C-alpha cells in the first residue's frame, strides 16, 4: 500500500526511449566539402529556429534566456573552427560536432563553480538539438495508453514526437532541473525526474509512479495502488471546466491564446470556451501564405469553434516580431515605428488585403471575430473600413456579413484615451496589457535595465485602466483582456473589479485562471478600484492587494 499522498503522484506505463544508432561512422573518401557545407546549413537553420522561438510571446523568460545563450554559442569562432577541422580530417559531421561539444562539456563540468556546470548543461542541450537536426528522423513515438517516458536524456524535440495528452511524466538519468528539457516539461505541466541509473531500475512496460515532491520513483505498483491513484487524480485534477463562475455566481469567460492549429490536438479542446486571440502573424514564420492557404486554416478554425468564440487578430508584424520572409526594415518597424495596423495600411497593404479576404471567405462556415492590432488614431479605423469595402466588392458574395464582428486592440495610449470615440466604430475591444504597459510606462519590455518600471503594479498603468472605465462610462462595448498580467492573481482581481468578464490566456493556464475566478467575489472585492486610485506608489498597491487576496 502506498504511504505517500496520492494526489502528488503520477502513474503510467514505463516506456523506455532508446537513443537510435546513428550513422556515426564516416565512409571512406567522404566528401568533406559537402560535410562542411551541411554544417553551415545546419547552423544557419538552427540559428533561425532559435530566433523565432525567442520572438515567441508565449515562451517564458527562463526559456528565452537559455535560447539567447545558445545563439552566442553557435557564433563561437573557436567552436566552429574546431568542428570544421575535424571534418577536414575526414570525420562525419555528426561525430565532429559531438566530439567538439563533448570536449567543452567536459571542460566546463570539471570547473568547480556551479555556474559552469550549468553552462555544461546548456551545451549538452544545444549539442542534442544540433545532432538531432543533423540526423533528422521524424518518427512519432506510438503509444496507446498513458505512459511515463524513461531515457538517458531527451532533446527538446521529444515533445514534438509524442502525443502530449498521453505523456504522464518523464524520467531522465542526466541533466539539471534548469535544463531546457525541464523548462519545457514544466510549461506543459508534465512532472519530470532526474534519477541516475533509472534505465537499470525500470523495466520497459512496467507500471510505475513518480512522486515529484519527494523525487522518488515508485516501482512495482500493485494494480490496486495504480487504480487508486488514478481515481484520486481524476477527482482532484484541475480539469478545464466548460463554464466558470465567481463566488457570487457571476459568469466569467476564460478563452485561449494560440499561434497555430496545434490547439486541435489539445487534450481539453472540448472544454475550451473559445479562442480569445489567434496570433496569426506566426503563420508567416517560414513563408508568406497565399490567400487559399490562409483560407484553409481560418475555415478549419471557424468550423471547430463554430458554437464557441473565435477571435483572429490580423498580422501584428513589427517590434520584436519580424520574420525574414517579410522583407521589412527592422529599424523602421520597431516598437515605436511601423507595426501592426500601421504596417498593414502602409507597406504591407497587399498582404493585409489577402488576409482579410481569406478571413471574410471563412465567415461562410461560421462566426468569426476579426481583431486589429496597434490602432492609435480614429483615421486608421476609417481607412480599414475603406479597405474592407474594397474587399467586399472583390469577393462579390463569397462571405457571410452577419457572421463577422470587428474589434480593435487597446494597446496604445491614444487608443485608450480615444476609447469612447473608437467604441462607436467597432464591435469589441481587447486590451493588450503587455504592450499597453510598455507604452504607457514609457519602457521597452526587452530592455533589462528598466525592467523595474515594467511592473504589473505600475501605478500609472493601473490608473490608466481606471480611466478607461470612466471614459467608457455611458458606452456599452464588450471588453476583454489578453496578456500575461492575468496570471498575477492580484492584478486579475483588480481587472475583475473593473468589471472585465472575459480573458484570454495560454491553454495551459486556463485552469489556473478558472481557479482565480472561483476565488473572486464581486461583493467582497468591489472596493479594489477605489482603493488603488488613491495610491501613489507601487509599494502601497502591492501591500494592499497582498493583504486582501
Amino acid at each position, binding site marked *: 500500500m502506498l504511504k505517500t499522498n496520492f494526489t502528488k503522484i503520477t502513474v503510467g506505463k514505463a516506456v523506455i526511449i532508446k537513443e537510435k544508432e546513428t550513422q556515426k561512422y564516416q565512409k571512406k573518401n567522404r566528401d568533406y566539402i559537402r560535410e562542411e557545407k551541411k554544417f553551415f546549413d545546419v547552423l544557419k537553420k538552427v540559428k533561425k529556429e532559435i530566433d523565432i522561438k525567442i520572438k515567441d510571446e508565449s515562451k517564458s523568460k527562463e526559456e528565452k534566456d537559455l535560447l*539567447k*545563450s545558445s*545563439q*552566442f*554559442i553557435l*557564433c*563561437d*569562432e*573557436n*567552436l566552429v573552427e574546431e568542428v570544421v577541422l575535424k571534418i577536414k580530417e575526414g570525420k562525419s559531421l555528426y561525430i565532429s560536432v559531438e566530439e567538439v561539444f563533448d570536449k*567543452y562539456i567536459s*571542460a*566546463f563540468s570539471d*570547473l568547480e*563553480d556551479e*555556474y*559552469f556546470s550549468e*553552462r555544461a548543461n546548456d551545451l549538452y542541450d544545444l549539442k542534442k538539438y544540433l545532432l538531432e537536426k543533423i540526423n533528422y528522423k521524424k518518427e512519432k513515438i506510438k503509444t496507446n495508453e498513458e505512459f511515463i517516458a524513461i531515457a538517458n536524456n531527451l532533446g527538446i524535440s521529444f515533445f514534438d514526437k509524442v502525443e502530449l495528452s498521453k505523456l504522464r511524466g518523464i524520467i531522465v538519468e542526466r541533466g539539471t532541473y534548469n535544463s531546457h528539457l525541464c523548462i519545457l516539461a514544466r510549461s506543459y505541466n508534465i512532472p519530470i525526474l532526474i534519477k541516475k541509473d533509472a534505465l537499470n531500475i525500470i523495466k520497459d512496460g512496467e507500471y510505475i509512479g513518480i512522486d515529484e515532491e519527494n523525487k522518488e520513483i515508485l516501482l512495482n505498483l500493485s494494480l490496486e495502488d495504480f487504480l487508486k491513484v488514478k481515481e484520486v487524480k481524476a477527482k482532484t485534477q484541475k480539469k478545464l471546466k466548460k463554464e466558470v463562475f465567481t463566488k457570487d455566481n457571476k459568469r466569467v469567460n476564460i478563452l485561449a491564446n494560440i499561434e497555430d492549429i496545434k490547439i486541435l490536438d489539445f487534450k481539453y479542446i472540448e472544454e475550451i470556451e473559445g479562442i480569445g486571440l489567434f496570433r496569426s502573424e506566426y503563420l508567416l514564420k517560414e513563408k508568406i501564405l497565399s490567400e487559399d492557404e490562409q483560407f484553409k486554416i481560418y475555415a478549419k478554425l471557424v468550423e471547430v469553434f463554430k458554437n464557441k468564440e473565435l477571435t483572429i487578430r490580423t498580422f501584428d508584424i513589427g517590434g520584436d516580431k519580424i520574420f525574414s520572409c517579410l522583407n521589412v526594415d527592422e529599424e523602421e518597424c520597431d516598437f515605436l515605428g511601423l507595426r501592426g495596423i500601421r504596417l498593414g495600411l502602409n507597406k504591407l497593404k497587399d498582404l493585409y488585403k489577402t488576409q482579410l479576404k481569406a478571413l471574410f471567405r471563412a465567415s461562410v462556415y461560421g462566426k468569426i471575430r476579426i481583431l486589429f492590432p496597434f490602432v492609435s488614431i480614429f483615421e486608421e479605423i476609417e481607412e480599414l473600413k475603406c479597405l474592407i469595402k474594397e474587399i467586399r466588392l472583390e469577393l462579390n458574395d463569397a462571405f457571410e456579413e452577419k457572421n463577422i464582428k470587428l474589434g480593435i486592440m487597446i494597446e496604445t495610449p491614444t487608443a485608450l484615451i480615444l476609447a469612447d470615440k473608437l467604441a462607436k466604430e467597432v464591435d469589441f475591444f481587447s486590451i493588450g496589457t503587455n504592450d499597453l504597459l510598455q507604452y504607457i510606462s514609457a519602457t521597452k519590455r526587452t530592455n*533589462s*535595465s528598466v525592467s523595474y518600471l515594467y511592473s504589473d503594479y505600475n501605478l500609472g498603468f493601473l490608473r490608466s485602466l481606471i480611466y478607461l472605465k470612466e471614459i467608457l462610462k455611458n458606452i456599452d462595448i464588450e471588453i476583454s483582456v489578453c496578456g500575461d498580467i492575468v496570471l498575477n492573481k492580484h492584478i486579475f482581481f483588480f481587472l475583475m473589479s473593473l468589471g472585465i468578464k472575459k480573458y484570454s490566456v495560454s491553454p495551459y493556464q486556463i485552469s489556473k485562471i478558472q481557479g482565480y475566478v472561483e476565488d473572486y467575489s464581486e461583493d467582497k472585492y468591489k472596493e479594489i478600484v477605489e482603493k488603488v486610485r488613491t495610491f501613489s506608489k507601487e509599494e502601497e498597491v502591492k501591500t494592499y492587494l497582498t493583504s486582501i487576496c
Partner: protein
Amino acid sequence: MKSEKVKIINSNGLHLRPAGTLCREALKFESKIEIVFNNIRANAKSVLSVLGACIKQGDEVLVEVKGKDEDEALISIIELLKKENLE
C-alpha cells in the same frame, strides 16, 4: 599589433551574457582579438574561450589586437569592456 589594459567593472565579470556581447562586437572586426588574463589567452570571438578564462569584476585584462582594422577594433572593445551594465 596594438594592446591596452582595462579593468572589468561589470558586476558579473565576463560571464556568458557579457562574453556574448563582447564576442558579437569582436566578430565585426577582421583583426585577431585576444583577451589576456592570468596567462590565459582567450579568443574574443569565442564566447566559450572567454568564459573559460573566468574573468571576474575587478580583474585587469590585456586586450591584444592584430590586423588591418586593429585601431578601430581596440577602441571599440576597450569601450565595451569599460561599461558597467554589460549584458
